[in-house]
């Protein structure tokens, strides 16, 4: 049975099946873990075809690996994209996503409400490549238009931002990107393709930290770049890596030779080849297992998170709650539009009593794990100002929703009453 890509199978079917047919030689039904670095050539002509990108196949696992490829196709399918490239972490995916677009001296525009680690990567480390990031408050889309320069190569936002319950207006941002002839890159980590089909709202590229909800159990770091296949890289001269002759492949032009496959082929054949931030096969396997239950987990994550957010909103020791699923959220309308199935399970709240109460609440938890991750089956808690967002300036912390009184939660799948009870006792102990 096979359907055309247009008609397509349902999301849940693709969570389980996309990319993984029975292994034809042995009949193994679950995806085999190809713990293997290199692949035997039939002869030198076959090797030449592979190195010239003239045939499909495996050479060396830094570029492609059969287990990792199943994960790539599965994520590409769930996002409705043309192809995907998995890599070692979400941060690697961000470098990989920008690598074909950026030359030294180029700039890109990013939301000032990104995950703190992304702000540090973009603002500090990318300077070493002479990639320049302009941060903007993207709630006012005019700010983005004003920040455009002739060397701007992309706009980068999170569909749902970590940590603050902030939702980006993807359609407006996509319109600006389209006018400027540049791609809109969306970090869809917090929403996942189940909650936010970002390509439908105009994203051109999607990046993931698969470390979070996609793997889902806190077992495996990983990242992924997904290409929609609809951006025309040769429409202007902004993207020579894809549109101009590639010296390492004897003057082949990726956009011309590979059409809508150009970006993903380049990501493997050039970006992974030379940056080397490859995902390990075992991590791909663990992430595939996680994705098999993505919709079920996301539904419960969202239901628990909404209930916990309501509980905290009515708690005497809580100053405010920032969850896009609450009626009180300024992002409620954007959440209804872009995240109709739920506003995710990561959000922040403010404790009465500021920095010290925030730290104490976190330390008083018994069920919530105090650690720097999100998107686990376990409920997680963190005080961003003293941890993930520590490297930022006070101003950047405030903009990113990580001020001194802010506590970040990632609501897990435990019994709801146990989750709220633990928060209640921790808040009371912190206040006593």
């Amino acid at each position, binding site marked *: *049975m*096979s*359907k*055309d*890509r*247009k008609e*397509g*199978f349902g999301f849940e*079917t*693709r969570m389980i*099946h*996309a*990319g993984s*047919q*029975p292994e*034809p*030689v042995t*009949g193994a*039904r679950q995806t085999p873990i190809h713990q293997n670095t290199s692949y035997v050539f039939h002869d030198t002509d*076959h090797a030449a*075809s592979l190195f*010239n*990108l*003239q*045939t*499909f*196949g*495996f050479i060396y696992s830094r570029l*492609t690996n*059969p287990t*990792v*490829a*199943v994960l*790539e*196709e599965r994520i*590409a*399918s769930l996002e*409705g*994209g*043309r*192809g*995907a*490239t*998995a890599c070692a972490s979400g941060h690697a995916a961000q470098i990989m996503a920008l690598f074909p677009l950026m030359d030294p001296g180029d700039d890109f525009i990013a939301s000032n409400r990104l995950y703190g680690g992304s702000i540090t990567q973009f603002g500090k480390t990318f300077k070493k490549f002479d990639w320049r990031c302009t941060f903007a408050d993207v709630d006012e889309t005019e700010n983005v238009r004003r920040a455009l320069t002739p060397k701007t190569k992309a706009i980068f936002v999170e569909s749902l931002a970590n940590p603050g319950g902030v939702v980006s207006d993807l359609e407006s941002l996509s319109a600006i990107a389209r006018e400027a002839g540049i791609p809109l890159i969306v970090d869809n980590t917090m929403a996942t393709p189940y909650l936010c089909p970002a390509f439908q709202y105009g994203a051109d590229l999607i990046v993931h930290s698969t470390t979070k909800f996609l793997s889902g159990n806190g077992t495996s770091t990983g990242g992924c770049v997904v290409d929609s296949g609809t951006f025309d890289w040769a429409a202007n001269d902004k993207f020579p890596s894809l549109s101009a002759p590639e010296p390492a*492949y*004897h*003057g*082949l032009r990726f956009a*011309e*030779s590979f*059409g809508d*496959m150009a970006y*993903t*082929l380049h990501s*493997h054949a050039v970006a992974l080849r030379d940056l080397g931030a490859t995902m390990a096969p075992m991590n791909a396997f663990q992430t595939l297992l996680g994705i098999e239950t993505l919709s079920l987990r996301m539904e419960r994550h969202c239901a628990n998170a909404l209930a916990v957010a309501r509980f905290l909103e009515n708690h005497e020791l809580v100053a405010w709650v920032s969850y896009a699923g609450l009626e009180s959220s300024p992002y409620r309308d954007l959440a209804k539009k872009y995240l109709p199935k739920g506003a995710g399970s990561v959000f922040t709240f403010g404790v009465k009593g500021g920095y010290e109460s925030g730290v104490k609440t976190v330390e008083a938890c018994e069920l919530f794990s105090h650690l720097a991750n999100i998107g686990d089956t376990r409920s997680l808690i963190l005080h961003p100002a003293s941890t993930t967002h520590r490297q930022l300036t006070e101003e950047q912390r405030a903009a990113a929703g990580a001020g001194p009184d802010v506590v970040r939660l990632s609501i897990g799948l435990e019994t709801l009453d146990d989750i709220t009870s633990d928060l209640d006792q921790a808040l009371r102990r912190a206040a006593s």
Partner: protein
Amino acid sequence: MSEPLTYSDEFLRGILAGVRAIAMVGASPKWTRPSYFAMKYLQEKGYRVIPVNPRAAGQDILGETCHATLAEVPGDFDMVDIFRASDAAGESVDEALALKDNKNIRVIWMQLGVRDDAAAARAEAAGLSVVMDRCPKIEYGRLHAELSWGGFNSGIVSSRRRRVRIL
């Protein structure tokens, strides 16, 4: 812009399983050209691919002599694969239709980005199967799970065990 074309996997599978010899119009002797990639791949999969290109006539491309026109190709071929701009594709289609009984041509295939709806209608009226705006290499790879090796979305879901020949 006209509507995007859709072809069922069954239709494409049928074409790719039935065809043996392919005349490739616009084949190039330069290895970095897309036509060269497609020709080499299709040869590896067991098809005979005969290059047709007046500018390369007489040259050897991947072990086959290039001919100036379809009419000059000796012997039969089942399919004409057109690597030309959309506005030149109709000419090749008409050339093929004039030869269809003589050469036993059953399929017209226009490459990715190549489309001429009027020419396609003429070929279909003459009883030929037509595919436009697709690449036979990509479709072969997609239907045989090879495209998936590169992380591409094949759109295929199947719990059936494929039969593979161990060569």
